[in-house]
């Protein structure tokens, strides 16, 4: 990889204040994203993956969510210490985000051309007409047919896949270095999903940007990722290159996720599931977070929490006491 990474998340802890106590949504999470790389964060709902992305954007709900510890470095600059105003300039310019629900992520009262143009005008200070032309151009780039007509339509006149393309066009207005995609294809059906993913890959090459892709769909991971970060109950449990995650998972949770995925070979058989549910975020178990659901758990797992350690190379990390046993099982 060589030079310094584009994004470094170091020991990030995010707490949420609720009526029933403090929820430690993310704890000591560390990972980085290199230039031109796609990193996928994988995990169940509630594993802290969306909170991590919101922290990077500086969009945690004010007064409720708070970055307790850690640093988020973009090009070496710590985003945690930036003021609201500085973050606002950063958002859209250097980092952009696309959201899960294309159906509700566009303002229903403006035409899509208007909405994209607004971003151009805001960040580049260009005139109304020029901005609209740029908007049409960017609609063409994300593969929307007849962009000159579509630009004057309202969000309800577009299909889900089209809207997600619009969202992407909007996110890319200022050639961001980092695109955060929070489950962008979850709400789309499979064929459209494949098209949108394909387009994102092309755009990534064209813009030479990095993508932080948040998903729970391992199929999407296999398709998109260079590297994978697996999160469970607010902590990073495994990190590896994408091939290794699929061939040789080291954390029992990752293994569980892989076994729960239908494949052509498992046809006709019942799918394995991971027993149990995510722990209550207010009362996380002692020791390893995963031990109540882990088939390999021992007394050590119940008492001591494993930290994320390098295994072999720098790119391979796991937080498990018994990862070597797991290797034998597979």
């Amino acid at each position, binding site marked *: 990889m060589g030079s310094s990474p584009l994004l470094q998340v170091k020991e990030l802890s995010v707490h949420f204040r609720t009526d029933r106590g403090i929820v430690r949504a993310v704890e000591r999470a560390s990972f980085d994203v290199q230039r031109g790389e796609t990193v996928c964060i994988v995990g169940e709902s509630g594993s802290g993956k969306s909170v991590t992305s919101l922290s990077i*954007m500086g*969009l945690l709900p004010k*007064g409720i969510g708070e970055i307790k510890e850690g640093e988020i470095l973009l090009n070496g600059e710590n985003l945690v210490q930036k003021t609201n105003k500085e973050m*606002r*300039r*950063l*958002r*859209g*310019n250097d980092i*952009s*985000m696309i*959201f*899960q*629900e294309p159906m*509700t*992520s*566009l*303002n*229903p*009262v403006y035409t899509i051309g208007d909405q994209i143009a*607004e*971003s151009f005008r*805001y*960040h580049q200070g260009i005139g109304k007409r020029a901005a609209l032309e740029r908007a049409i151009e960017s609609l063409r780039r994300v593969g929307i047919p007849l962009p000159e007509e579509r630009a004057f339509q309202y969000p309800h006149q577009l299909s889900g896949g089209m809207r997600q393309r619009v*969202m992407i066009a*909007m*996110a890319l*207005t200022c050639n961001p270095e980092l695109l955060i995609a929070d489950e962008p294809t979850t709400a789309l059906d499979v064929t459209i999903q494949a098209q949108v993913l394909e387009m994102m890959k092309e755009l990534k090459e064209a813009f030479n940007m990095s993508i932080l892709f948040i998903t729970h769909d391992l199929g999407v991971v296999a398709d998109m990722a260079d590297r994978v970060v697996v999160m469970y109950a607010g902590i990073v449990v495994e990190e590896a290159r994408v091939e290794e995650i699929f061939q040789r998972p080291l954390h029992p949770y990752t293994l569980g996720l892989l076994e729960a995925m239908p494949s052509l070979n498992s046809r006709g058989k019942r799918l394995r599931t991971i027993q149990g549910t995510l722990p209550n975020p207010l009362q996380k178990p002692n020791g390893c977070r995963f031990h109540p659901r882990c088939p390999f758990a021992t007394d050590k797992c119940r008492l001591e929490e494993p930290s994320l350690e390098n295994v072999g190379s720098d790119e391979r990390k796991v937080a498990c006491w018994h990862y070597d046993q797991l290797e034998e099982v597979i």
Partner: protein
Amino acid sequence: MKRFFNQLTKRKTALIGFIFLIFVFLIASLTPFLAPMDPFVQNIERRLLPPMTMNADGFTHWLGTDQLGRDVLSRLIYGSRISIMIAAGAVFIGGAIGLIVGLVSGYSGGWIDSVFMRLIDMQLAFPFLLLSLTMVSILGSSIMNVVVVLSLTSWISYAKVVRSSVLSIKYLEFIEATRATGTSKLAILFRHILPHVLSPFIVVASFQVATLIIAESSLSFLGLGVPSSEPTWGAMLADGREYMTDAWWIAIYPGLMLMLVAMSANLFGDGLRDVLDPQ
């Protein structure tokens, strides 16, 4: 816009209300041409003439004359001007205050929200009339002061409605998405949230027209509204009250107009709500 009118015209009661309001508005704007007589001219000889009486000049008092011999129809027409002017002024000023307070309070939350909401609670604890009476007696009675007083008592209705719709919108994903593109707070508030709160705002405004016309009359009825030289429906009602048994027409006609205007505004408001807020 076209679809909006199509839908509105399908609701007959709303259409009737709308037409009547337009009618009153036209009367109010064309008073000098419409009023058959000078509403200020007194003539003791012709006092308390019943409706449809012809006077010595061959002029018919269609709605009779009052205790000072002034033509009731002319006064009624002039009175519409003041009623409409005050209601419109108060809706405009009160609406502007309420809209801004509601937007800011709903969007920023925190202590700003708390301060405004407690202020509203405090004001709601006072009966409307008591509050207006106090303010008019401090400020003195003039048309402008009545507008100010009514604005200051009515802004809370808008503020509450606007605030609650802002609250329901500000957590929606498209607002989050605009924040993610680095849009500033003001731009989000006025470009992205404002259009969504306008429908409930307009509905409240239409109901307020009715409330304010009645409120203005109440103040005039109590002699604390517009100066007594000006003919207003409320003041006419107050004057006529003493003569109710001998000359019913002095009080009945302004009362009837008040009722009809308030009802039309409410019917129109109902229709607007159905059209703008389809649920």
